[in-house]
């Protein structure tokens, strides 16, 4: 029997209303998982929910940056065999304009919410033994870009946090890993395209030997990390960049 499946696993996906989170939810449902999706936007979350294959799924409308939403979610969430943290924002801002408010804007969503969620989930014993945690990070954590102080910083913090989870929960067989993605075609990509100049964006994309990524590329690696096929993989980051970091183009 192949270990590359998610049968009998219940997986929570945050940020499931769009982009990578939505595709992860769909793909893991196709691999047999019972999926619990959360997101802030009811309409878009329901869209994702309708796209899930098979049954036995659950949707929880929640803003995980909001304390009472988080508490409510912890109450209703079932025992989990995996969590995929996809919630995130990207807002380029040059260093000299950074304020407390700007730091909060990015770090609340990209770091604090994931940390608080993990604290509550573990404290409330909602993780089964052998559970697998996946954080969607970015290559910018280790290879930042101009204007990326907050985004890259929040992802670097997240990657460190993932390693601490791996250390604190290995006795339960719980694993934690990150996926450092380069440019992937999502609404966040469209947003970046609006904010960078078109020329800058095109120039960037030309540096990808295998082209920019698709949400399914990220979902497939996530399936591996959630499945028992990766049972010896923990505390690490898998880079998915279509060859971008080779730097030869």
């Amino acid at each position, binding site marked *: 029997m192949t270990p590359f499946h998610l049968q009998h696993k219940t997986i929570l996906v945050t940020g499931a209303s769009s982009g990578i989170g939505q595709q992860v939810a769909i793909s893991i449902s196709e691999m047999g998982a019972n999926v619990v999706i959360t997101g802030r936007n009811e309409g878009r979350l329901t869209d994702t929910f309708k796209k899930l294959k098979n049954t036995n799924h659950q949707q929880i409308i929640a803003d995980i940056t909001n304390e009472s939403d988080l508490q409510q979610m912890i109450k209703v969430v079932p025992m989990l065999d995996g969590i995929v943290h996809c919630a995130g924002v990207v807002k380029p801002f040059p260093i000299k*304009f950074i*304020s407390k408010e700007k730091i909060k804007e990015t770090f609340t969503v990209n770091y604090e919410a994931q940390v608080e969620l993990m604290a509550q989930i573990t404290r409330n014993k909602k993780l089964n033994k052998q559970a697998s945690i996946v954080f969607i990070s970015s290559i910018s954590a280790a290879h930042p870009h*101009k204007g990326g102080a907050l985004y890259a910083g929040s992802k670097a913090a997240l990657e460190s946090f993932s390693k601490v989870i791996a250390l604190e929960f290995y006795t339960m067989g719980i694993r934690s890993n990150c996926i450092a993605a380069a440019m992937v075609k999502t609404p966040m990509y469209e947003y970046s395209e609006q904010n960078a*100049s078109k020329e800058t964006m095109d120039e960037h994309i030309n540096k990808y030997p295998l082209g920019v990524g698709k949400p399914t590329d990220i979902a497939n690696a996530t399936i591996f990390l959630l499945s028992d096929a990766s049972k010896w993989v923990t505390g690490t980051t898998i880079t998915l960049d279509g060859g971008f970091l080779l730097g030869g183009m």
Partner: protein
Amino acid sequence: MDIGDFIKKIENEIEEITPGVLKADTNYRNIPGWSSMHALIIIALIDTEYNVTITGSDIRSCQTVNDLFTIVKSRV
């Protein structure tokens, strides 16, 4: 809102510009050494000083400092 003040703020933030050179009808893309970093700075400056959100596509669709000022004024 005053365009003179707007220009001064931009001049102050972009080191490559000699103060007094930037005019309302200057095409900012012709500023020597103009790059995506300058676009980021202008977006952040407008966000910080005027609490107005402009995007990279606004920067692309505008030509002159005055075009940009008109957008900012319309969104204050």
